């Protein structure tokens, strides 16, 4: 009963915090409107018009397929980079030699601009989903990797010793302490990787001409359709917001309940 009530309370406060998010978006819309009034309809269409154009696009079932295609690619690429980054990060965190070898590689991977990866991937995979997913993997994977490796390295050795004193073997220590501690570092990295996934997916689609939101943006550019382009951008951002606040944040707050308990009063994140 108490647990259900506290869950209800946390869900309520999470939903209530949407107001501050809406306020921030309204501020952005106000700045946008000011830009529209200063530069005119062609350069920057009004936010309401863009929104209307967005709704007009989404009233067409074909447009939903386009948005879902991009969303699917972004989430697929994100899932692959999250899994690969987390697995390799765990290995590197527990093995300092691996980490020493991996760090320069991470720097190289992150140093190559995503656009260069798109070109390479197009040569390797042609105009397919593989191009998009590979590009997301090489740009978002290292972020997750670094986050997880840092998490493993900053684990509390005192807790490890405590678990050992109570008879926990290496596997039990990993499952009950290591992974739980890493989760705190994993989630911020996942949020960044997810955003990266959507951005890179749209970019790769635009350049590789494989349809999706990127493909629609390319067409809007060809037609000088600024309102259409902005509408598609808005749809891409909306898709990101849905995934981030619908999945990543609730899971994370479930893991971070004890942090919230540390500050029972005042403004919460």
């Amino acid at each position, binding site marked *: 009963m*108490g647990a259900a009530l506290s869950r209800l309370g946390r869900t309520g406060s999470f939903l209530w915090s949407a107001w501050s998010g809406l306020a921030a978006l309204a501020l952005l819309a106000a700045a946008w409107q000011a830009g529209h009034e200063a530069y005119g309809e062609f350069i920057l269409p009004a936010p309401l018009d863009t929104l209307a154009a967005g709704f007009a696009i989404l009233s067409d079932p074909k447009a939903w397929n386009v948005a879902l295609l991009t969303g699917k690619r972004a989430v697929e690429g994100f899932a692959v980079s999250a899994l690969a980054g987390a697995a390799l990060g765990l290995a590197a965190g527990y093995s300092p030699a691996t980490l020493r070898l991996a760090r320069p590689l991470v720097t190289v991977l992150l140093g190559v601009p995503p656009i260069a990866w798109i070109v390479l991937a197009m040569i390797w995979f042609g105009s397919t989903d593989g191009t998009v997913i590979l590009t997301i993997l090489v740009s978002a994977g290292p972020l997750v990797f670094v986050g997880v490796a840092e998490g493993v390295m900053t684990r*509390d050795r*005192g*807790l490890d*010793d*405590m*678990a*050992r*004193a*109570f*008879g*926990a073997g290496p596997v*039990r220590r990993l499952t*009950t*302490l290591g992974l*739980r501690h890493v989760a*705190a570092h994993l989630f911020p990295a996942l949020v960044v990787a997810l955003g990266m996934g959507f951005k890179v997916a749209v970019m790769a689609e635009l350049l590789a001409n494989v349809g999706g939101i990127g493909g629609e943006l390319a067409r809007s550019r060809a037609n000088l359709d600024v309102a259409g382009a902005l509408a598609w951008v808005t749809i891409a951002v909306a898709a990101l917001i849905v995934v981030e606040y619908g999945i990543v944040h609730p899971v994370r707050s479930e*893991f971070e*309940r*004890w942090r919230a*308990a*540390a500050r*029972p009063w005042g403004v919460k994140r």
Partner: protein
Amino acid sequence: MSALALSRIGHAYFGRTVLDRIDLAVAPGEVVALVGPSGCGKSTLVHIAAGIVEPLRGTVAARYHRHAMVFQEPRLLPWATALDNIAYPLRLSGMRGRARRARAEAAAARAAFDTIDLDKYPVELSGGMRQRVAIARALAVEPDFVFFDEPFTALDAALKRRMQDLVIEAARGAQFAALFVTHDLMEAARIAHRIVVLDHAGNGVAGERPLPGKPGEREDAAVFATVQSFLGTDPLFRHIHDVDERKVA
């Protein structure tokens, strides 16, 4: 037959010997206080005895059924409630659900930890309450041997006393043996049956003294007199307050 027997234990960190030729035996139900000047390796010794550190030389013969440990810091999982922290070793040994909860609650009661605080996270608890959780966690596994590594050093005098009484009571009630590391002779004289003094350089055991009476039945004045006589006339305790900051864990 001793519950724990350490023989010829030796250990070194990065080639520097911190412990050498340590022989120590603890009888079932006996509380042994291990004292020695700061940095003499007593903490390392108890870590070796508890199986956290692999000794370089020598053997640890454990003939007890199940051990538990209380550290200097509470070492609680920050993401788990007090109850889940107490139940953590039970979770490790595969105990589930209702039985685990009941056992953890019983252990909390024995450590005089208030039931209404069981759902709180460690960040919400005071230092003394956290150490109570750590003691309850150790009692939860129903150990017949408990290692204490300077558990009350960070607590204030009044709280320290209450925690010592708690350990004395628990040791009498559950009949567990204990190896209690401390640098506080008063604490050792209250809690233990026997005091073992480690050599100031970790070079073997310097000596040992039995304590008169039983823990929990000694008058404060008697405890104080014992400590005074140790410090004033007994050569064994001459180096006890020497400070040697060789930082060894």
